[in-house]
């Protein structure tokens, strides 16, 4: 139905011309799902946006190729002709449902817009159709919510509205750009199911763009792997997953977290004891119970996984342990010391022994300090080194986290995301802490980088003899790393168990639902 032949797109800026998409060809058949996989900067989104003339020109420039859709070349169409196709025959669903809906317009008006523009229907007919579709995508009570504004919906619901909007004109092709990336796992599973269901029912073709092989494993028929603007491998799903030829595809497959950590946990005494911890935030007159009466232990030398979806309070627990947010009530004991009662010098000494690794490597480094300054700061502060000896120690840290020494005088913005996270890890390890809280340390990174950083953390954990609290939303990641897992929901603990026990026989319904939502289950069956 859609055939892309030798498409090339480049961006012309003052710095020169960069080829974003380089001579790619692929097809989407009706009633099938073709997935384009690639990491950030691979050109996957640019490729799809240029099909519909949605990249700004300039700086974008289509250098050549053909895009055949229903016997016409989309690239040769005039803007007005292309507009007639957009939203009618080819519709799109975007990544972030928070920003992709107009906040100043009711969802009903936004939903009806493509219908009113492309087809000759009355306002009343359009509204009726909109209500039907909202019902179909699973919005409860559409009649009373159709006149609401986007901010009154949750992320998952907004994505359902986006999907309804794309489907309202019965398009023949749907382009979905990372439609589930911004959503929680359980919501992601629901949206994927919805998309797959609608696709079978309506027999439309879907072009599904994603960075995550696991996500598309369950639904794609065809998979196209892109790297640096080129297609490195194309094939049907089973072929790609069973015997990928290209080394990059193999690397991507290996980067999918799977399998568990070898059990090596000797029974030890607890290093951190959390008892009845409550952290509430005041928001106007109501208090939000971010963490509500939580108790658990972190044993010396273990990696404890703290798992939950957004709003579960997992990050707040981590911050509470290190006194980065004020604790409302409860106790946190670290090696016998009551952390919540510490002040001044005692607190400073404690901070030498416990450290934090943050999620966003672009926000967690001071943009005006060099790597050297960042790494030297904790060493000098705690009197571990003096001005004349600190240099050698900084270089040692650079070696440990796998950064070239030549970069020591560079600033954070000159590094990639993965390199920045290495700097942040180096800073956390500088004082040789016993306990580390890692808050989603890899979720902002590309999959292959993610695998490298996890490997680094595993190695350093062993080398430094660390105890770690690993906070994540990603069950597949935590399974690789954690000895035990605590599952959180809405500020409370749902279940805690040894990792393998939890995966094999989850006791609580919510845990079962979480495990069920892990993308790529069919992939595991394939490999099994």
């Amino acid at each position: 139905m859609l055939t892309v032949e030798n498409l090339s797109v480049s961006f012309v800026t003052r710095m020169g011309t960069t080829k974003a998409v380089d001579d790619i060809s692929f097809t989407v058949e009706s009633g099938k799902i073709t997935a384009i996989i690639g990491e950030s900067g691979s050109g996957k989104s640019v490729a799809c946006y240029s099909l519909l003339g949605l990249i700004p020109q300039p700086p974008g420039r289509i250098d050549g190729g053909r895009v055949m859709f229903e016997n016409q070349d989309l690239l040769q169409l005039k803007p007005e002709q292309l507009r007639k196709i957009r939203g009618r025959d080819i519709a799109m669903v975007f990544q972030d449902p928070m920003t992709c809906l107009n906040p100043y317009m009711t969802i009903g008006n936004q939903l009806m817009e493509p219908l009113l523009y492309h087809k000759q229907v009355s306002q009343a007919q359009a509204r009726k159709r909109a209500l039907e579709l909202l019902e179909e995508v699973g919005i409860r009570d559409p009649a009373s919510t159709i006149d609401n504004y986007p901010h009154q919906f949750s992320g998952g619901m907004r994505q359902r509205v986006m999907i309804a909007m794309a489907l309202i004109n019965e398009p023949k092709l749907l382009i979905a750009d990372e439609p589930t990336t911004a959503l929680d796992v359980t919501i992601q599973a629901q949206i994927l199911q919805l998309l797959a269901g609608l696709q079978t029912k309506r027999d439309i073709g879907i072009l599904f763009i994603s960075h995550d092989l696991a996500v598309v494993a369950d639904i794609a028929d065809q998979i196209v792997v892109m790297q640096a603007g080129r297609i490195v491998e194309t094939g049907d799903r089973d072929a790609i997953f069973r015997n990928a030829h290209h080394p990059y595809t193999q690397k991507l497959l290996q980067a999918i977290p799977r399998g568990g950590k070898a059990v090596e946990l000797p029974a030890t005494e607890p290093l951190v004891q959390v008892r009845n911890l409550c952290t509430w935030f005041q928001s106007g007159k109501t208090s939000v119970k971010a963490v509500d009466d939580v108790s658990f232990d972190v044993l010396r030398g273990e990696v404890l996984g703290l798992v939950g979806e957004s709003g579960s309070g997992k990050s707040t627990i981590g911050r509470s342990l290190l006194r980065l947010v004020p604790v409302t009530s409860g106790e946190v004991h670290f090696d016998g010391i009551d952390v919540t009662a510490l002040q001044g010098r005692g607190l400073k000494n404690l901070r030498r022994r416990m450290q934090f690794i943050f999620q966003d490597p672009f926000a967690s480094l001071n943009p005006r300090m060099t790597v050297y300054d960042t790494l030297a700061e904790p060493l000098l502060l705690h009197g571990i080194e003096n001005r004349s000896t600190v240099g050698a120690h900084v270089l040692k840290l650079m070696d440990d986290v796998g950064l070239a020494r030549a970069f020591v005088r560079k600033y954070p913005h000159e590094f990639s995301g993965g390199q920045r996270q290495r700097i942040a890890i180096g800073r956390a390890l500088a004082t040789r802490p016993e306990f580390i809280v890692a808050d989603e340390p890899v979720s902002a990174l590309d999959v292959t980088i993610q695998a490298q950083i996890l490997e680094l953390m595993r190695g350093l954990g062993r080398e430094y003899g660390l105890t770690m609290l690993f906070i994540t939303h990603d069950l597949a990641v935590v399974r690789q790393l954690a000895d035990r897992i605590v599952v959180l929901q809405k500020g409370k603990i749902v279940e805690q168990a040894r990792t393998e026990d939890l995966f094999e026989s989850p006791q609580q319904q919510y845990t079962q639902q979480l495990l069920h939502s892990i993308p790529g289950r069919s992939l595991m069956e394939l490999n099994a």
Partner: protein
Amino acid sequence: MWRFIGFRLLQSIPVLLVVITVTFFLVRLAPGGPFSSEKAVIPEVKAALEEQYRLNLPMYEQYIAYLADLAEGDLGPSFKYPGRSVNELIAAGFPVTAELGFYALLVAISIGGIAGIVASLRPNSAQDYIPMSVAMIGICVPSLLMGPILILVFGIYLEWLPVSGWGDMPGDKILPAITLGSTYAAYIARLSRAGMLEVMSQDYIRTARAKGLPEWQVVVRHGLRGGLIPVVAFLGPAFAGLLSGSFVVETIFQIPGLGRFYVQAAFNRDYTMILGATVFLATLIIVFNLLSDILAAWMNPRLRSQYGGR
């Protein structure tokens, strides 16, 4: 929404009280009595005058009496024009200033808004640079220079338009309105350009394009509302600026408006007039700030629902 309006109204009351109090005592602090310039006033006359202006009372009683009068809308008698009340002077001058301000605002919003939107549609092209360069000139050539230049060019050299007056000759309102409005037209142009650029780079604009809407509909239906919120929020401060700007423009064009009265009162040390006019203008400005804030909040559904209901 009503709660928001109520909250803001309540907030304005202390502000107004502060303005009245500060102004009142500042004026009383001023060196030299109101009649010091007039020599040899007969003691009986002076006493009578002092009684009329309540200067014989202690300061705090004067203040309370002034507040009481104010509550009834009475701004008291003028020092300089015996027999005329401040209310009358304001009533004479304000309609002129209001008309001038209205035209200037019209100039500012229409020219500034259109220029900003046009510029934002093709950033970094001639369509952007030309209106924005003109706007830069508008910002850098203040009204006190713009006025004389316009008079020189259109009034004296070209003899197209009258050089002064208000409502005496056809076309004599054009130059003052342009002089007063030009700076604000420039600010609005820059604000609306920045606002539109910000909005047009949002993801939901891409969504609108993906629906196949023609570009003008994307701009009008999806862009304008969000893009113009900063402009609406700016209208309050702009109004305050227009009022004080009218001081200069009315002086240049010899327009018998409140601004000119105010400056004259300042020179003549007509303290009750200054006091009365300050209170009046401050109230006006506070009300306008309130209106523009409410309008801007009402345009944003998230804020609207935050304060309950529509």
